[in-house]
């Protein structure tokens, strides 16, 4: 009976799985680097954002990966420039430490702001931000990693393992008003062996807000496996920036697998 009920719910939704290219940005350039080493410039952020918006991205994510005081001004200008040329939702994160950072980014044209370390250090920020701006624009980015047989929350790009247990943190950010979780597994990120299905399934089965899967896409099948984790957004960077796949190619593939996508 329960199965039958669930399948009705499933059938009666035509919500599309979102394909989300992610731009790691320094000032106004999209970069690719492993742990800040060997940083390579992939292109101009505004031009790449425009290209992805036109070529079928369902949303765009951009992160200030070197949010220093000097770089921040240029980054905010880049957010403004991007917001002017795209008409799909834009999530912006990286270096968000307090309410005024969130306000600045929303004023610059971001539709959603993603908070990571600042939320781990001060969870109240999630509640304050969602009360002020609405849950719909507050994304909490969670970086997870396995440590001593437990899934833990990590910060500083995976270099610092916190005491927080991943699933209880995911539940907590939901209860504090996060509208969405951007879930990156540091065990799979950058390796291109696929999303961390096990970690993602644990998260999606314990929260009722949307989860974006991030970290590890290398092939078309990986997108499909990501969809099977019940993540409603699938985020990828390298496979798009390198030109390995076009967004259209990914959507066509998912479509043949019966996954609803926006055409």
């Amino acid at each position, binding site marked *: 009976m329960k199965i039958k009920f669930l399948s009705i719910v499933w059938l009666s*939704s035509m919500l599309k799985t979102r394909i989300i290219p992610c731009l790691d940005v320094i000032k106004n350039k999209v970069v690719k680097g492993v742990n800040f080493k060997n940083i390579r410039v992939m292109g101009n952020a505004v031009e790449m954002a425009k290209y992805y918006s036109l070529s079928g991205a369902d949303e765009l994510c951009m992160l200030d990966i070197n949010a220093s005081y000097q770089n921040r001004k240029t980054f905010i200008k880049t957010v403004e420039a991007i917001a002017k040329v795209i008409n799909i939702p834009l999530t912006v994160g990286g270096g968000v430490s307090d309410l005024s950072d969130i306000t600045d980014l929303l004023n610059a*044209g971001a*539709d959603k702001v993603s908070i990571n370390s600042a939320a781990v250090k001060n969870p109240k920020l999630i509640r304050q931000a969602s009360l002020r*701006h609405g849950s*719909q624009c507050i994304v909490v980015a969670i970086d997870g990693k396995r440590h001593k047989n437990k899934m833990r929350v990590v910060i500083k790009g995976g270099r610092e393992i916190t005491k927080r247990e991943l699933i209880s943190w995911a539940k907590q950010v939901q209860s504090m008003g996060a509208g969405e979780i951007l879930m990156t597994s540091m065990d799979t990120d950058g390796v291109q062996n696929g999303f961390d299905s096990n970690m993602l399934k644990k998260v999606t089965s314990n929260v*009722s*807000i949307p989860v974006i899967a991030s970290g590890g896409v290398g092939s078309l099948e990986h997108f499909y496996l990501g969809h099977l984790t019940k993540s*409603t957004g699938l985020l990828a960077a390298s496979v798009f920036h390198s030109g390995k796949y076009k967004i259209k190619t990914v959507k066509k593939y998912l479509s043949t697998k019966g996954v609803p996508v926006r055409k």
Partner: protein
Amino acid sequence: MKKKVIGLIDGQSGNIGSINKAIKDIIKGKPYRLKIIKGHFNYSSFDKIILPGQGAYATLMSNLKKLKIIKPLKEYLASNSSYLGICVGMQILSDWGYEDKITRGLGVISGDIKKFRNKKLIIPHMGWNTINLNNDDTIITNSFDKKDFYFVHSYIFQNIKKSDVLAFTLYGQKFPSIVKKGNIYGVQFHPEKSHKHGLNLIKNYILKS
């Protein structure tokens, strides 16, 4: 020729940047003028009014009250003038909103704004979903039928008259994604975030009357 005046209400409920830019692009070189409404206004000096909204029903209503926009807006709507409400700007057309606390709405389209009923759904309903037109319309023409638009909301129009629903969308249940009564339109999705179909919808709203 006298220019038509489009009012864009800034109800301090989210950023109006995208919609502002979309309207400017559309009216460029055409006999239209855009005015941002931030407080009391003379309702008879506008040909069309657009109210975008994000966040909570109660917040938008109390903002509009503080800004002294409620009274002229009610007069404007009572004269069956052209209106487009986006997201919460659509929801406040109802009698009552049940988000956070029970709040009286503008009472233009009878019904209530309540949460999605199905407890198993991922909430908010966030992402691209399809609209299904119930009938052809002069502004929201058949060309929009079965197209995808960007949604982000947890509450929906309920107890609404069938004749006021122009389009519906499926998410665990059928819910109204476009409402219409006379010249008053409301869309639950965000056309300003919905790429080309969204921009076309705004374009049609402004240019067709």
